[in-house]
């Protein structure tokens, strides 16, 4: 018999990422949710699966569901370098190369024995709550899961904001569905009676946390910005966009985070990066599009090495748009749930997305816009070049375009991305140092748009 020779342990030390207290707290929260999911069965709890944009977390909590969010699972697997294998497995199972890699990472994880990103087992859900906004692939995704598990699916249809505003009819339509389909459905599956006061209580907590989150995200208006509104913000939005919105833990997390950021402002510090405090702030950018999760740190490094800080991003609003005033409202619980779903970033039309970016450029005094277009997401990527042109035209600020993927490690070409980013930073610098473009007035005054 052949002797088995064990593979030698890699001697290269894994780089240790520097994190502040709030980041560690965030990680704890996320890990805790995975533990709760793993123990849900023993604890006699039912499990729900739902999406991030416009999710109904407070409502799900009213029925004691443990809450799984397949997108978050996919991105967590991406950051932990596990998604590559899952995607290949799903492709072997018959899913096309061009399909959303979140879907394939999720399906691949199921095929691989349903072990979640943290190593805890993932339970089979009892209900799929499809409150999708903006992405039709999500519907197919849950069809596949339903087919696999044969479990009930509740669908909340959220009308698209085609006119750039929420019509009262739209709100009523969503509320009606909540009352007639979603709440009775969740009652039936969970066996728990709906209590609107419980929902109000969760919403009170949500609103507090939302207030602190907005304060943190808007701190990037300072110079230097104490946060990175893209790479840093994805940590900050973790709890509130997922299973913790409405919990006292999330409220505590956001007040801690806010205090930490306020301290940084007092000390005149820039953002925290995995390699410590960022050096001089040379470029202030707005970023549109999701990050690449599989090369997250390499991608971020390309920014902080050049002194580029993202002062605001649209991605940090995908799970809910709070900075223009929306808060969960305990006095009108169902209506505010409807407004929340209707108002999240992926439910906005292109003109609204363009307005939002132009406002960010103005309010955060950004040098320009960078778009990260995602290869496997036609839904998010459609119209991005139009956004780019329009923003350039209105603001007179330069924009650039790069292409990567969500969680498919095969679609991150470091040399290509770096080349474009460096070219972009140098372009911004050149425009600035020559003074050309400095006096360019927006074609349309932003205030009138």
């Amino acid at each position, binding site marked *: 018999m052949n002797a088995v020779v064990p593979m030698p342990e890699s001697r290269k030390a894994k780089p240790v990422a520097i994190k502040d207290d709030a980041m560690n707290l965030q990680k704890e929260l996320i890990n805790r949710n995975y533990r709760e999911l793993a123990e849900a069965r023993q604890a006699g709890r039912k499990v729900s699966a739902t999406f991030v944009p416009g999710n109904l977390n407070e409502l799900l909590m009213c029925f004691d569901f443990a809450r799984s969010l397949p997108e978050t699972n996919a991105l967590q697997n991406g950051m932990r370098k596990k998604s590559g294998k899952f995607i290949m497995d799903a492709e072997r199972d018959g899913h096309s190369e061009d399909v959303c890699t979140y879907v394939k990472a999720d399906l691949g994880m199921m095929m691989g024995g349903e072990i979640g990103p943290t190593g805890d087992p993932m339970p089979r859900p009892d209900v799929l709550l499809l409150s999708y906004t903006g992405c039709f692939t999500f519907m197919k995704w849950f069809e596949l899961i339903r087919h696999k598990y044969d479990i009930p699916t509740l669908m909340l249809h959220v009308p698209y904001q085609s006119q750039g505003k929420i019509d009262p009819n739209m709100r009523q339509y969503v509320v009606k569905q909540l009352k007639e389909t979603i709440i009775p459905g969740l009652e039936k599956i969970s066996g728990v009676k709906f209590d609107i006061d419980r929902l109000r209580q969760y919403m009170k907590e949500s609103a507090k946390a939302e207030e602190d989150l907005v304060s943190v995200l808007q701190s990037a208006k300072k110079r230097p910005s104490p946060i990175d509104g893209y790479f840093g913000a994805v940590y900050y939005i973790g709890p509130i966009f997922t299973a913790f919105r409405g919990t006292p833990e999330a409220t505590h997390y956001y007040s801690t985070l806010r205090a930490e950021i306020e301290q940084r402002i007092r000390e005149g510090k820039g953002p925290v990066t995995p390699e410590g405090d960022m050096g001089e702030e040379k470029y202030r950018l707005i970023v549109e599009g999701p990050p690449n999760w599989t090369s997250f740190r390499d991608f971020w490094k390309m920014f902080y090495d050049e002194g580029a800080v993202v002062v605001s991003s649209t991605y940090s609003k995908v799970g809910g748009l709070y900075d223009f005033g929306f808060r969960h409202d305990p006095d009108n619980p169902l209506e505010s749930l409807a407004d929340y779903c209707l108002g999240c970033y992926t439910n906005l039309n292109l003109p609204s997305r363009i307005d939002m970016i132009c406002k960010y450029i103005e309010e955060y005094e950004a040098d320009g816009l960078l778009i990260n277009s995602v290869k496997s997401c036609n839904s998010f990527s459609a119209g991005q070049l139009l956004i780019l042109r329009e923003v350039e035209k209105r603001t007179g600020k330069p924009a650039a375009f790069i*292409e990567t993927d969500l969680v498919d490690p095969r679609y991150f070409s470091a040399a290509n991305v770096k080349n474009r980013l460096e070219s972009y930073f140098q*372009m911004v610098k050149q425009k600035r140092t020559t003074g*050309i473009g400095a006096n360019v007035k927006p074609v349309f005054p932003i205030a009138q748009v």
Partner: protein
Amino acid sequence: MRCFIGIDLGSTTTKAVAIDENQNVIGRGITNSRSNYDTAATVAKTEALLNGRFYLFRQALSNTNALNGSLNGFLEQLERDFRSEQYIEQLADLDETCRRNLQTAHFGAATGQVGEALAEVFRQLQQEAPSLFAPGAKRKSDFFRDIAGSQYLAIGETVAKESGTRYDFLLNLFDRSIIEVENRVYADSVRRHLLAALERTFAALPETAARRAQVEAPIKGVLDTELEETYVVGTGYGRARLPFSKEHIRSEILCHGLGAHVMYPKTATVLDIGGQDTKAIQVDPNGIVESFQMNDRCAAGCGRYLGYIADEMNMGLHELGPMAMKSTKAIRINSTCTVFAGAELRDRLALGDKREDIMAGLHRAIILRAMSILARSGGIRDQFTFTGGVAKNEAAVKALTELVFENYGQLQINIDPDSIYTGALGAATFAQRAVMDEGKTAEAKEEATA
């Protein structure tokens, strides 16, 4: 005199341009990028400065009127003689390196015989060397590897046959030695070679020898002028390899934008089709880049595509354009994917289509791809400048001219014969501006390597 140098470390070739304080281009140099970017950068820079010497010779000699009427002939002869000197030195180096490698080659009992064959090959190579640089001699390439390589292979084959030595032993020695030789820099010997070449030129052109004193003085004057590398800026995919700080590095986008602007001050849109990528750049009236787009994820429609097609067709890269120009029928090739294009090409051949028509279709496919990238960057505006290696290909230019007209109407399309140097020219201009406009001084250039 103060020189400002731009080096463009491309994936296939490395280009350098030297300019003076008044932004006059004084010299250009090009070399293959090889496996070693450091050497490529040094060689290209040396070549550009050497080319600069010739530029200065011309200036100095025309001022003295010593060679009235025969200046061009004289300088051409001098350059040939110089190249010949350079070639002979490198050949001697190759000879020595091959001998050294023979000692460790494990040819066993055949070693002695191979050594004799090798000596014979080099004897013939040296004998033929001058004819390679004779007036009117045509060379397919100016790179030592290519010139010496093709000679070595041809002579080696005959010698091996006649002496009963194995040809692959000779090939093995060449392969092992050429990389060493081409990665050596001969910068120190420029002056020596120029002086030796001058003697040869006087011998070759006896009528100029009569005016020796008048000719020699200005040439030596130029040789005694130090070409100071005042400031160097690097660009291209290999830029990170250059031994100087970030301040001295600019992205290719910026360099191509500015280079095109320097060549044609009214340029608004620039298309650069390089070996690995295609870039569409919009520049403002000052040569400042306003926006840009690049091809995504694959080399579809780049210079490499043509290289691949040339390999598939067993042709030289430079033969593709002329062949496509003979096309009489429009054939659509839809694949801009490098690999699929091979399949489409074979399919078309199997259907009986003519090679020239297929070639024309392939060129059009590349340009169609570039049109999409141009559209993404904001479209084509007057004046439009086409740069990069593919701009030398007449079939690509033809397809581009047609498609630009169809889509954007009558625009001025600029193509400079030296377009391959656009990026290096932009870099050199950045270097010149850094010193002349911003008052920067050169830092210790070789710091990183010291």
